[in-house]
């Protein structure tokens, strides 16, 4: 499964960083989302699904196997 972030929608709430810290990060200069690990598998899948669902601005999208 892959996760893609749209920095033009991001407002830097930090929800994804708190929910899946190994996968998401925030830029020090803009505060906006940076995806450190695009390919998701194993234990990270559940956290990333939560992060996608809880992103307040719909800036995260899942694609590839295992996504609807």
């Amino acid at each position: 499964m892959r996760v893609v972030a749209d920095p033009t929608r991001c407002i830097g709430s930090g929800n994804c960083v708190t929910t899946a810290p190994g996968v998401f990060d925030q830029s020090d200069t803009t505060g906006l989302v940076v995806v450190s690990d695009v390919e998701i598998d194993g234990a990270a899948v559940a956290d990333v699904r939560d992060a996608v669902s809880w992103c307040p601005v719909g800036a995260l999208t899942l694609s590839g196997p295992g996504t609807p």
Partner: protein
Amino acid sequence: MPTPPRLAWPFDRETALTPPPEFAQIRQSCPFSEVETWNGEPAWIATRWEDVRTVLADHRFSSNPATPGVMPAPSEAALTFWQNKGTFDKLDPPEHDHERKMVTPEFTVRNIERYREAVTDIVDRLLDDMQAQGGVVDLVEAFGNPLPAQITCVMMGLPVSDAPFFRRQLLTFMSQASSPDESKGAMQALLDYFDAVVADRLDHPTDDVAGRLVTDHVVNGTLTGEGARRMLLDLLIGGLDTTSSMIALGTVTLLEHPEQLRLLEEHPAQWNQAVEELLRYLTIAQFIGSRTATDDVEIGGVTVERGHGVIASLLAANWDPERFERPEEFDVTRDARGHVAFGFGVHQCIGQPLARLELQIAMPRLFERFPQLSLVTTSADLEFNRTTIHTAKQVLVDLGAPA
């Protein structure tokens, strides 16, 4: 079928810490229905977690009180306050995003983590002061109010000794007991204060939130001095009553659920989860989430016409049994994440990593220091300020013997 009379908004609470029963009634009968605000205007109210998120994430619903139509407010005072804010929380994209992004880097999870030691020091010093005083203390005054005020001073590079000034002016400004002139005077005093801060940073650049805002945005003209002082004041206001109330009412909630408190004593690693459950259960931002439709929008099986008002109730959403099973049960073992206590959409609280840090440090340390902590007055005796944020005037606790 005749239309039932509209319920009057805001609803009264029957008990101090739980939502008004009207939310559950509406959610069961017609989850997206119409109410009547203080000035007789109709407004739609969303009570399901799903609908509340949908409204708050949809850019066709405006947060700007200048948008033509109804901006559903809980009171005339709240509406006047919103109309006079002039900061990004009352702007829509793209103007909102432009301003918010000027301070977004200050509130990243990593950057806020840098204040862990400062927060811990403030918390411990306040607990020392409480211990020295001993006996019965007002938790709002002794702990809830000073913590966010002081950490804000640290972040903005202001003298911590100015914290009581902020508290006093904000109290006068917000209090229903103040005359319109007193209220206006208090706001002016705060604006004057931040005016001086901006002027000072222009002359003497500093490496703090206020200094960076001035150096990076006022100097190059992307933000006016007026914009900067309003933004700094807004950041201050946003973090004060909110965090203070979570600490005070969170303590009351825990003390009234002793079996939950015991669980935390036995499993201190659960504290962060408990903080999320407190955020969900209390949802103190009781009147945040008012919007005006800028287009006809289909939602919850109805059409909200352009110019109509919508209340996306965070409190109702966080008590939606479809999302949170048995929402009326305060349960620190619950995974409460996904709550909307900080809002949803582009206006979601910018200070949430800071609020979490403060609560995750302050709450366990309070109970560690005072293991015999008990309530002098129960939640049934509390008196509340009728403000946008659910805040108690006073929370008296008996500290007991310190650990």
